[in-house]
């Protein structure tokens, strides 16, 4: 479904991604784990076309993304839930959700999708009229994921959804990710919470200073000596 091939990217003179190869097949949960600054978020930014890569290619269902604008990528069915949530602060919960279905193809399903999001996150229903900027971090994360689902994504890109959340909430968010996947959405998850993300992922990539150093099934990597030492403190 998503094919990243030999992707090189730099911010100015500083090269951040080196020959990154990554594939996501339909129906999978694929996770990219790695330390801060390893290039995880940058990879997602490239997929969403928020930044422009130097060489290599990204294709979605065979379509080369190089020639497309960020909004066109969303129309193709790739939706990113960005790091730091990026909720619209002066809009209510419902208004934020409605923005999530801005693209024309998602508008007919708007009300049905709002109900669907409220079923996943009953808390959002309670906060329906609250301004996004006044909500807690956990609620904002729920809203960000919910907003991402509003566009009927085929592939959802989740950037550090557990960042800064209480342990109980982290567990809840990862359960939700599995639930979303079961409902038929392919997931590309970028995380620093290596244990939780490897636990739910079908396949995983380990990024270190912009290079893919390891790839395999989620459980395999969970038992990998290098991963254990570098990330799990075992």
């Amino acid at each position, binding site marked *: 479904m998503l094919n990243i091939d030999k992707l090189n990217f730099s911010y100015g003179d500083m090269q951040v991604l080196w020959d990154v190869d990554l594939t996501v097949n339909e129906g999978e949960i694929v996770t990219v784990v790695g330390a801060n600054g390893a290039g995880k978020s940058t990879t997602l930014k490239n997929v*969403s076309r*928020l930044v422009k890569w130097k060489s290599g290619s990204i294709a979605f269902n065979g379509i080369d993304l190089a020639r497309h*604008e*960020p*909004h066109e990528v*969303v*129309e193709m069915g790739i*939706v*990113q*839930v*960005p790091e730091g949530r*990026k*909720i*619209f*602060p*002066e*809009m209510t919960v419902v*208004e934020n959700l*409605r*923005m*999530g279905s*801005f*693209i024309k193809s998602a*508008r007919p399903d708007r009300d049905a999708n709002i109900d669907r999001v409220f079923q996943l996150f009953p808390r959002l229903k309670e906060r329906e009229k609250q301004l996004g900027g006044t909500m807690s971090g956990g609620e904002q994360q729920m809203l960000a994921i919910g*907003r991402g689902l509003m*566009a009927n994504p085929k592939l959802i890109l989740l950037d550090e959804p557990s960042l800064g959340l209480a342990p109980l909430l982290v567990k809840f968010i990862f359960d939700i990710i599995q639930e979303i996947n079961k409902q038929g959405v392919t997931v590309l998850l970028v995380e620093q919470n290596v244990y939780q993300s490897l636990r739910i992922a079908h396949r995983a990539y380990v990024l270190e200073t912009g290079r893919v150093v390891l790839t395999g099934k989620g459980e395999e990597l969970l038992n990998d000596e290098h991963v254990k030492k570098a990330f799990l403190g075992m």
Partner: protein
Amino acid sequence: MMVLLQSLISGILIGGVYALIGIGMTIIFGVMRVINFAHGDILMVGMYLTYTLFSSLGIDPFVSIVITIPLMFLFGAFLQKVFINRMLGAHPQNQILLTIGLGLIMSNTMMLIFTSDYKIISTSYSSESFNVAGISISSPLAISFLITAAITLLLYWFLLKTNTGQAIRATAQDREAAQLMGINVRWMSILAFGIGSALAGTAGALISPTYYIFPQIGGIFTLKAFIITVLGGMGSIIGATLGGIIIGVAESVSAVYISSGWKDVVVFVLFLLVLLFKPAGLMGKSRM
């Protein structure tokens, strides 16, 4: 008491037009983070457009806004697409130079076409007024206030209730997140500059029956627009509406109670006081 009421009312009436100028500037700033120093000059172009329609075709200034609004929208959209868009993300000082430069080109072009002579649009009602409970109200100001109020309400409805309006607000609140929603932010920027210019041009049309028209008038209004937007809080539409009314009232009350030569001093002192106590402006926290 009567005098105070009189000056308050005329202040609010002119404040409505100021609000229109300020809202235009604040929408442009909100969506693009560009301070439009050509705003007053765009207003001036609106005035000359109104003048031309009036003097050559005899169209009443208040009627001609149905032509002025779309033309000024297209003019603004053109400016955005061709010039401003290239400067998004550039250093603020370069953006300022660009908009000041565009303003200079506009005022000098108008000087070439119309010379720097003062022009007047004298309609049958230009100096007419009517009485309400002993308070005399200028007819052109009253009409322009009604039109302003209608346009402002329409704009609020557009921004709050329509998909495109919400997308403009989303772009103002978080440009990157807006892109991730599938919003074409470049198109939203063009729309925002078009709307901002249409509002400035409309304000120019509405005041043309009561103001002298000359190519350099833009500078005064750029300054006013700047004060109104900063006073209300950069990027806040409610703030700009409020700021416009406050400046209008401050001018009119001080002109009556001190002297018209001092009204700008009062406005600036008020401006500085607000910034001293609320550095982010009256509605600093709230954005579009």
